[in-house]
């Protein structure tokens, strides 16, 4: 079914707001605003009545799959349940209607939350200091890389290289480029892990940072992480941990113990804040004591039970975002960590890894897993053989799963696996759901390939023509 857009629903004269009459003495607008800046007419927005708007958006919402309604094993995205209590608490007016330029005295409750969150995240990371300012994981990466650069500058060192494994998220090299570094890609070992020999060949005094995701994007724990950190430190470099996959190890292992110098958290992944159709997230950064002076301003501090914002940090990289970051998201993070505590976090990791290994054990006989050893919170299967033998691509399986009432896994990532299906069940799914998913996959792979090519058939649309969308981009409504 095709939904009309807001612009097609527009009817001149309709409105969904009535403002109060102006209660102050009015002056002629012409007297207040200069002619060269005054608009004749307001912008051409659609005109709609309230019931039309609500029906429109409720109908749109029905065209989405979401965690609350469907199993959503989108690898690398940790689509876990987002607790309702956290949303409710973060929306209390005492938090949600505070202005960023209120005095510190008037927001002691919020500052207490932020301070406590800094400490909890530092503990989970096994590192010394935290900035809550980055608005997302990618901004956390940029923040940390700028800090690394400032750190080397303060030591009179010029280092221009950032080493990135071939299985890294695309944000890693993109962030390194924005921070002014050159990127060197390191090939993984045949086991899908850091290749220490390949790493050592690229290590010299030009290396600023080695970026590593652990568990990596193949869902494997980098068992040589300690050794790799030692080697990088041996040439004076720093190690950055992309914390996208922390759901597997929170409460089990602390990156600081690996030898990691800095890392980010994706709170919408690991700590359950809602994914929101693509944000807002938050990407707090944790670092060692040596890097602490370079954190963005301000840092929340406490003196004699009073919380305050420390802007007096001469070595700081500055600000990466306005104000203090995505505070509403951080309040939810705080609620989540206070709900679970240390034992709860450990259980999260255990159940996430249990679910992934169980599901892997259930399906690898029909969908091979090339890096076939104990996985962490996710695993990467391949449809390469199916593609060659029966012309069934990873995408065909993904699309057919939608018909069975499951969101698709991440497909075609990481790039080192052909026809990749990256499956992350998360801890907030039951054994029964995983069993149903495995059974659906078994059925799908017995269906005729032609049927898969025609899938999905139960969704509001069939497969879209993406080539056309790219070739003739239509990115604003212009009428039919």
């Amino acid at each position: 079914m095709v939904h009309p857009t807001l612009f097609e629903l527009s009817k001149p004269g309709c409105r969904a707001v009535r403002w109060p009459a102006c209660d102050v003495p009015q002056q002629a607008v012409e007297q207040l605003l200069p002619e060269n800046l005054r608009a004749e007419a307001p912008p051409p927005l659609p005109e709609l009545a309230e019931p039309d708007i609500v029906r429109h958006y409720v109908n749109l919402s029905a065209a989405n799959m979401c965690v609350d309604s469907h199993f959503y094993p989108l690898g690398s995205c940790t689509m876990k349940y987002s607790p309702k209590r956290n949303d409710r608490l973060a929306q209390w007016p005492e938090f949600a209607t505070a202005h960023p330029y209120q005095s510190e005295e008037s927001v002691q409750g919020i500052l207490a939350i932020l301070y406590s969150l800094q400490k909890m995240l530092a503990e989970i990371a096994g590192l010394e200091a935290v900035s809550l300012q980055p608005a997302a994981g990618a901004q956390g990466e940029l923040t940390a890389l700028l800090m690394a650069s400032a750190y080397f500058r303060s030591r009179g060192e010029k280092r221009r290289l950032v080493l990135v494994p071939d299985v890294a998220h695309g944000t890693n090299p993109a962030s390194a480029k924005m921070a002014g570094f050159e990127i060197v890609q390191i090939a993984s070992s045949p086991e899908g892990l850091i290749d220490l020999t390949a790493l050592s060949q690229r290590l010299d005094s030009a290396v600023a940072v080695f970026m590593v995701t652990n568990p990596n994007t193949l869902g494997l724990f980098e068992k040589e992480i300690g050794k790799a950190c030692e080697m990088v430190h041996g040439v004076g470099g720093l190690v950055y941990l992309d914390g996208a996959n922390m759901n597997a190890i929170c409460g089990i292992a602390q990156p600081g113990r690996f030898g990691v110098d800095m890392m980010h958290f994706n709170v919408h992944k690991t700590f359950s804040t809602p994914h929101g159709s693509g944000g807002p997230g938050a990407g707090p950064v944790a670092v060692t004591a040596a890097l602490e002076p370079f954190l963005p301003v301000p840092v929340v501090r406490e003196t004699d039970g009073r919380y305050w914002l420390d802007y007096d940090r001469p070595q700081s990289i500055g600000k990466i975002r306005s104000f203090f970051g995505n505070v509403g998201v951080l309040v939810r993070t705080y609620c989540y960590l206070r709900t679970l505590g240390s034992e709860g976090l450990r259980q999260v990791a255990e159940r996430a890894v249990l679910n992934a290994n169980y599901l892997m054990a259930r399906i690898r006989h029909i969908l091979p897993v090339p890096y076939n050893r104990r996985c962490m919170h996710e695993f990467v299967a391949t449809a390469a053989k199916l593609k060659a033998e029966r012309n069934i691509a990873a995408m065909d399986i993904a699309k057919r799963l939608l018909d069975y009432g499951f969101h698709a896994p991440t497909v075609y990532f990481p790039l080192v696996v052909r026809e990749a299906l990256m499956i992350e069940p998360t801890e907030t799914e039951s054994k029964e759901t995983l069993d149903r998913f495995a059974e659906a996959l078994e059925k799908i792979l017995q269906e005729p390939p032609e049927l898969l090519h025609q899938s999905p058939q139960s969704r509001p649309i069939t497969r879209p023509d993406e080539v056309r969308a790219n070739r003739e981009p239509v990115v604003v409504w212009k009428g039919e």
Partner: protein
Amino acid sequence: MQFEYHLHNDADIQAMLASIGIASLKELFEAIDPGLRVQGSLNLPPALGELELEEHLRELAEQNRAAGTGLCFLGGGAYDHFIPAVVDAIASRSEFVTAYTPYQPEASQGTLEAMFEYQTLIARLTGMDLANASLYDGASAAAEAVLMALGATGRKRVLVAGTLHPEYRRVIETYLQNLEVSLEVLPWAQGALDPADVLTRLDSHVACLVVQCPNFFGSLEPVDQLAKHLHEVGGLFIVVFYPISLGLLKRPGDYGADIAVAEGQSLGIPMGFGGPYLGILACREALIRRLPGRLVGQTVDRLGRRCWVLTLQTREQHIRREKATSNICTNQGLMALRAAVYLAVVGPWGLRQLAELCLQKAHYACDQLASIAGLTRAFEAPFFNEFVLRDRRGNLRQELAQLEKEGFFVGPSLGRWYPELEDCFLVAVTEKRSRGQIDRLVERLAHR
């Protein structure tokens, strides 16, 4: 302990371990060297059930006096605008809140159509050709716009107005700190830029000029003249706008902006102590392949039905890695949805009336306040709903702190960013402030 979000009982766990072929949960983590593991338990505060958590948060909430619960005249980039109930109702639906980036278009047409409409609404609001599906906030959107301009022109000089929000300037500075470009802050006089002075600083090395209008002081800038001067040397004009003001003011696209960016908080997003907010970025068609972030495009499905997909993804980090236009991955989807619903609710005439209310109330407040002995307007430039007052009576910061205790949230004071404005502060007035409330503030400030 059995936690509320976990669905396994002991029998499940045992059955699953048996399927995997191991005996205990510990064995799942064998790949992790014991030396790297947490020793004992993490040092975190004790776990709380829902009722205890709510009681704990209640105690913390009571230590806040949020501006939105008092009389808020605070400005400087976040504003106390009214949020219609429809915005909250739509933006709290599970189908939007707990979905993610629409990688699978067949499972995400709701999000995709809503984002396509957001892009269109922003294009219409700004008079620009197109907009992306959102960035983090106004400040990082301004920084991304500068990166676009550097890439598009291949030039190395970046000019920013001294009247641009100081935090935006600081964020731009942070984003550019390792790139080989020069960042120059333009002086201002009487609360706004002087086009003749700006003209003397322009040459063919200028990649872009970033100007906020209304600017950080609330003053309107001579944007039309600046655009003309800048275009004569081939630089790109980046305008930071205030969405609500466009109910009355010309749109950036109408006076020659090449990239228009904004903080979208005023469009139905709570002040929230600074976030989450919404980075708006719109631009001219020619810059489409330099856009950072997600972009939704229209296409058809196999049955020829209109539908929407993420498009031009070869700009993005997950495809292009270090050659991407930006590192941004996640955007601010739910905040963009709020802004779209808000714009649908207010519509063109609601936006105009809203802008008129802000304009009239702010000018009434300004006239009344500036008539108090010892208080004067710092600048004479025309303004929309925010202005700078100078208080010659001394001890400004203590006075604003005292006002806050009495429930009047006013400011911020400007000395922390502009030493020469140590005795000056901002006042912003939105549609939510009644004449009675404004009069109370005037009365209070008259008797300090």
